[in-house]
């Protein structure tokens, strides 16, 4: 096969260089990998070979738990994605689309939400009735693919997710060069942005009086703590993640822990879901194993709720929620994760829950008293240093 070289538009190259000059060093690195990806397609086409990309696999089989670091790390196995494969052609095309979309964002120095990216790239393929994307979920997974493919983080691609969690407490955060006093946030709290990198948010140990961080599972519980001025009484920072914490929240907790040396405590539901939230904060998630490095907090502690709390707090039968089959299955799965397998306390905890055959939500403590959780339960646990590690 004759090798032919595809010409680049000269003007375009010059323009690209000019713009590149304005980019931050981090953006330059990202841009470099995006262009490298595109160049790979050109080279393959010139050699008349199948253009293909090798995407690191984001599956349980490709993650490794490092007991030394206490985090989940991604393995080396990859999945090849080819253009000339009926099953992969569309995914390949989408990968390139996302890459070009990210390049646009980088060039213009703007960022967009995942949904924004979805709309940016969604269009009808010429000459057909088919759309590039039909659902945001489709673009979300491709974006994660591109992250691992380029080895760039989402924020490095100028993408952010929906804001989910809130923060309140004795700390002043510098967000986009504004000082935000998080002790004066009223009932709403400070919304933790999706991107909390040092370029946007600066933390200063001098501006932080809080002694620890209490992370609760959801908004309703957080409201309870905030209304009771828990953070004021205990001199802490109070956060919630609206269920499974997003990367922004995990990154914020990570920075609070590592930069301000604050211990992190979690108050989560006593069910497999709550255990897994704790696991993600502590070791990182399987899907985003490549980010564990900068998000996982191996020192985070699990305050409650515990399986023994039903007896310990003398709760009434009415607060029990029976486990269903998927709960039981999930609990056993979690017990077998390498990072739980060798922890006797955790094995006992999970066993106990399975023996109870019911789960408990944090709100169940309200049945004792509205402020039982803030005034008695959590302070007592902190006092007793009764937590799981």
């Amino acid at each position, binding site marked *: 096969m004759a090798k032919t070289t595809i010409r680049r538009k000269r003007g375009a190259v010059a323009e690209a260089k000019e713009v590149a000059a304005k980019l931050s060093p981090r953006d330059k690195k990202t841009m470099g990998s995006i262009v490298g990806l595109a160049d790979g397609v*050109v080279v393959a*086409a010139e050699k008349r070979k199948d253009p293909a990309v090798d995407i690191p696999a984001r599956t349980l089989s490709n993650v490794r738990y490092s007991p030394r670091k206490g985090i989940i790390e991604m393995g080396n196995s990859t999945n090849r994605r080819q253009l000339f494969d009926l099953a992969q052609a569309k995914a390949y095309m989408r990968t390139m689309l996302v890459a070009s979309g990210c390049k646009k964002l980088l060039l213009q120095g703007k960022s967009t939400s995942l949904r924004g990216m979805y709309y940016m790239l969604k269009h009808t393929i010429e000459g057909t009735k088919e759309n590039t994307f039909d659902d945001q979920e489709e673009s979300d997974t491709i974006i994660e693919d591109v992250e691992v493919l380029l080895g760039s983080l989402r924020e490095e691609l100028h993408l952010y997710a929906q804001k989910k969690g809130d923060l309140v407490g004795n700390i002043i955060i510098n967000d986009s060069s504004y000082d935000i006093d998080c002790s004066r946030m009223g009932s709403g709290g400070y919304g933790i942005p999706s991107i909390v990198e040092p370029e946007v948010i600066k933390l200063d140990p001098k501006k932080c009086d809080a002694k620890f961080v209490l992370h609760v599972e959801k908004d309703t519980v957080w409201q309870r703590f905030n209304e009771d001025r828990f953070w004021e009484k205990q001199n802490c920072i109070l956060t919630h993640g609206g269920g499974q914490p997003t990367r922004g929240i995990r990154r914020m907790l990570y920075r609070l822990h590592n930069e301000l040396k604050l211990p992190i405590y979690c108050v989560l539901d006593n069910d497999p879901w709550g255990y897994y939230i704790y696991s993600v904060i502590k070791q990182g998630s399987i899907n985003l194993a490549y980010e564990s490095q900068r998000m996982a907090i191996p020192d985070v502690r699990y305050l409650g709720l515990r399986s023994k709390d039903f007896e310990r707090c003398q709760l009434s039968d009415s607060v029990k929620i029976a486990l269903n089959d998927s709960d039981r299955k999930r609990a056993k799965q979690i017990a077998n994760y390498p990072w739980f397998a060798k922890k006797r306390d955790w094995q006992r905890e999970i066993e106990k829950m399975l023996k109870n055959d019911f789960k408990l939500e944090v709100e169940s403590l309200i049945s004792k008293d509205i402020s039982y959780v803030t005034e008695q339960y959590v302070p007592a646990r902190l006092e007793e240093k009764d937590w799981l590690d």
Partner: protein
Amino acid sequence: MLLAPSSFAGENRLAVKRSKKSTKRGTRRPISTEGVEEPKQRRRVAAPSTNGDGHAEDETDDSAADDIAETNGEATDDAPTKGPKRRATAQSMAAKQRDISVSEFFAKNRHLLGFDNPRKALLTTVKEAVDNSLDACEEAGILPEIWVHIEATGGDRYKVGVQDNGPGILKKQIPLIFGKLLYGSKFHRLRQSRGQQGIGISAAGMYGVQTTGKPVKIISKIGANKAAHYYEIQIDTKKNEPQILNGRGEGVEIPPGKNEQAAIAKHEIEWEPQPHGTRVTIELQAKFVRGRGSVDEYLEQTAIANPHVTLHYKDPDGESRDYPRSADRLPAEPKEIKPHPYGVELGRLITLLHDDPNSTVAQFLTSTFSRVSGQVARKICTTAKISTRASTRRIGRKEADSLYQAIQATRIAAPATDCISPIGEELILKGLHQVVPGEFYAAATRPPAVYRGNPFQIEVGIAYGGQAAMQHVTKELLRELIEETDARTIRQFLIHTFNGLGSEAADRILKESKLGTRQSPSGLKPKEAETLLAAMKGVNISEGQSMEVLRYANRVPLQFSPASCAITQTILGTNWRSYGLSQSRGGLPKGPVTVMVHVASVWVPFTSESKEAIASYPEIQKELRLALQAVGRHLGTYIRRRLKVKQQSDRRQIFLRYLGEVATAVSEINAVDRAALYDQLLSVAKKRTADADVKLDDRGRPIEDLAELEKAENVLIVDPTAAPAAINRAPTEPETKT
């Protein structure tokens, strides 16, 4: 030529059947002697019959039916001595016994000839007239052109006019041919022809007279400068004689020249100006229908099997349809042959011996039968223990029987088969292509074979992709068609324009396109036309459609009793799944397929007198199977190939669809020339899908090249829209008149 009743006894199924009945009834008479001894005397049943006897009489003369006293006056030697009181004497009964005319018999038993109901009567009338015309033209060596005109004359009466451009009929023959049953030229010879007995057209005339009282009108011309003869005839059923009603029993002569047309018109009959030809007009009680078993279907099928014929058809609704000829060559003239010894039954053998009283047995055998040489004749005689030089006159019933056994025991070469004139693969393809819409056609003509001493030949044609035309219509063509049509609704437009598209499929298309059923095509907005086009291409109209089977015997379509026919049975017994069609167990294969099967023979073995189905002789079924398999293989190759091409192009399509996006995205990232990158990716894509092109088919064999298939002589692959039968254009092409 008056019919000699004994001539073809063995062959005539009518007679055979009857003879069986009579034996059942306890007639003790040896089966055949009668025909030999007293053939003239027993001319009761008009149907040629040697040993047929009292059965017909029983039917016509019920009062005389008496089981004890057999109707033919035979002595009842075993009559019980004690029994019921005698009601009549042999003498009194003899007074009631008389001749039955052939016409009387068939007037009462008209269902035997296909006049069971008004609907079938119409079809049979047209069929007999057209078949006669075709036989006449072909025998005279004229390329046939036939006009069929059916007109409603009020109530349930229809006037059928059929004209040909044949040689014409001599003046004195006209009344005999149209006004006398069993008068004709085809019965006495063993030769492939449409008609066999010479009953048809005169029976149709008789039926017309009986139901409407109107005579049969015949006009015939034998040359451009010869006078045309015009007759109004009705049949005298008592005597089986024609009665001429006009011109004081002499008919009318219309001199040629300028005033010819005017003169003809004065007699209230029609005449397409032709130098020679015959037109017969019969008014009869009938019912005009469309669809299965209709005149429309008959003419269409006739056009397929007779591509050398031009048909003009005008139906009672005033709509005309033309089937122009697609071949300008007459089929080879079938040869007349002598019967083969294996095909002759004992009774017939005796008759033949009787007809040839002045020769030796050896001479008789060699001269009467085909494939009997002197040596073979000697062999037969030795086996039968009869001297070769014995006179045929001396051969009695017993000797005849041993002669018959000897013939069966002797090895005799199969009859010459060059007496059959098949349609031929080329003409089958032309005929099918002309009439049946499709994209793929194949044909197979088997070498002639023999059943029971009768040569026969099987031909099969197949058309596939009947509705493909509609799915290949372009936007421009659709617009043109919509402008041209005078259909009131879109539904009508679809059904009338695209042949082979049923109303069910049309409804599905309308539903898909979300257009109103009653919407008129002229009011269609461009946007709506587009959705219609999309629906036409999108709807799977062949869903639920099963194979169309066209059966022919000696080029005549068989439209009834498909289930009992050897052709249908063989098609059902063939495994079409291996040829790429889907088929449920014991059913016809599914899909837009039309199969035509032609059985040509000097004597086609019908299962009944009404000539509706072919009997299942194993020899015939074997040939049928081989022929069907031959076309099936071609079809299978085509379908598999097409499927493969489709899959490949689908693959390519998917790649191509995304290539553009990939090229755009990449060039946006690294500013390469998009077009150049696209071209290169495209060539990689083509290379990739071309690799798959040489892959093996699902059975692991290399896929034959379609071009190779196309080169085969018995296969025709066409652009579906180009098939003349596919799309009915509103303004019909100018008629080609000779």
